[in-house]
């Protein structure tokens, strides 16, 4: 896997839209907090363990997330959106706007009571969907920050554990990013797309189309989420695992916290990127356009020109 860093993502949090009252209330608690923390992410995926260590700085509604590996070759930044940096220089960036559509969360929230985390008072909760435990969340009482989150596969096995390993509740006072340098990416209604309105309990919240000619739709169930991409070309993944669901074959990569699938339809490249547990992958993929042989001419073209 290619090593990138120090990846920095500045994420501007827009005021909450909607989710189940209890869950959204919990998640809202920490939005105004100011702190600096280090977080370990460890995911047990079907393709092996994926780990990462990130540094998080939150000040008000803005969050900066940086990788712990300072190779300085490539950076991904968002400031209410995203940007790609190369050796410190911005090569591409854009703001992104979410729609005001609401997602009816199917999760029940169970209170697990008080506990101590990193020597601080905290409260634990459990998210259950359709009788299946899907997440355990621990919130810092003073700041409301989500300091530990464990997501589960349907079998009850932990999928990803994200937890703070250091926590400083001093506000880091993040510098403001210049919004004028960013181009806008707002929800659109792309013509001729094949994004279904809902996919096995996930609702299509909004969809986007950019100047590069690829489109994506964002799906959420109120906690887990994924994006489905349509690209004019094949999506290039490195060090992939080929997986088959029924008669459908996909290329897959896991990172710490994300699963990425890519495949081709007759005339488009497709990809799915999301944080949903592995047991949900097959059902979601089967609800999307199926992999198809790209055809003779595309294969000839590819063999001639890459």
């Amino acid at each position, binding site marked *: 896997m290619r090593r990138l860093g120090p990846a920095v993502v500045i994420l501007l949090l827009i005021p909450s839209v909607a989710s189940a009252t209890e869950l959204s209330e919990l998640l809202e608690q920490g939005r105004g907090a100011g702190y600096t923390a280090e977080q370990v992410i460890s995911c047990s995926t079907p393709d092996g363990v994926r780990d990462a260590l990130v540094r998080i700085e939150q000040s008000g509604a803005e969050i900066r997330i940086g990788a712990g590996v300072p190779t300085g070759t490539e950076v991904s930044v968002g400031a209410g959106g995203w940007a790609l940096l190369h050796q410190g220089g911005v090569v591409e960036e854009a703001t992104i706007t979410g729609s005001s559509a609401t997602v009816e969360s199917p999760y029940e929230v169970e209170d697990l009571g008080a506990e101590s985390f990193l020597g601080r008072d905290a409260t634990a909760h459990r998210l259950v969907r359709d009788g299946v435990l899907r997440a355990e969340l621990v919130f810092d009482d003073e700041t409301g920050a989500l300091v530990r989150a464990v997501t589960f596969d349907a079998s009850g096995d932990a999928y990803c554990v994200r937890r703070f390993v250091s926590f400083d509740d001093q506000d880091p006072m993040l510098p403001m990013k210049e919004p004028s340098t960013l181009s806008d990416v707002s929800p659109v209604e792309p013509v001729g797309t094949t994004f279904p309105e809902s996919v096995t309990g996930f609702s299509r919240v909004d969809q986007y189309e950019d100047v590069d000619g690829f489109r994506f739709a964002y799906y959420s169930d*109120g906690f887990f989420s994924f994006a489905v991409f349509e690209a004019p070309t094949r999506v290039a993944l490195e060090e992939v695992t080929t997986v088959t669901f029924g008669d459908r074959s996909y290329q897959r990569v896991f990172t710490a916290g994300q699963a*990425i699938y890519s495949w081709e339809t007759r005339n488009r490249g497709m990809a799915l*990127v999301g944080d949903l547990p592995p047991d949900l992958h097959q059902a979601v993929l089967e609800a999307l356009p199926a992999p198809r042989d790209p055809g003779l001419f595309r294969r000839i073209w590819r063999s001639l020109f890459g």
Partner: protein
Amino acid sequence: MSHPSEMISAFLDGELNAQEAAGLKAHLGSCGRCAGELEEFQRVRSAVRSLPLLELPAGLVSGADAELIPLRRHRGVMVGAAAAIVALVVAFAAMLTPPSPTVSIDDLSSRFGARVSLDPAFGPAKVVVPDWETEGIEEE
């Protein structure tokens, strides 16, 4: 050596061995008639080669006679046909395949990460991590 017209023709066709060729070259250097004949052969040969190749109508020659058509003409037709087919395939592929930008995992992850950050379910502990790798992480 008298005037070896047949050897001149064979020489142009590359059919002489090294010893015969050397002997002929020595003769050409001292025989104006044969040297002129060589020039004439070369001129006629060039003129013939510059003529367009025509495909014979089916049935114009019998099957037996058709086998006597020089191999070079067959080869030219085959090369031309192959080139035409390749050109057609490339042209079709070019028409059917639009120019494509590169789409990488980083492009997708950053877009997904940006969008998920706007979602109410996003929290600092539910971070979307870009595609980088860490090693030797020791949890406290």
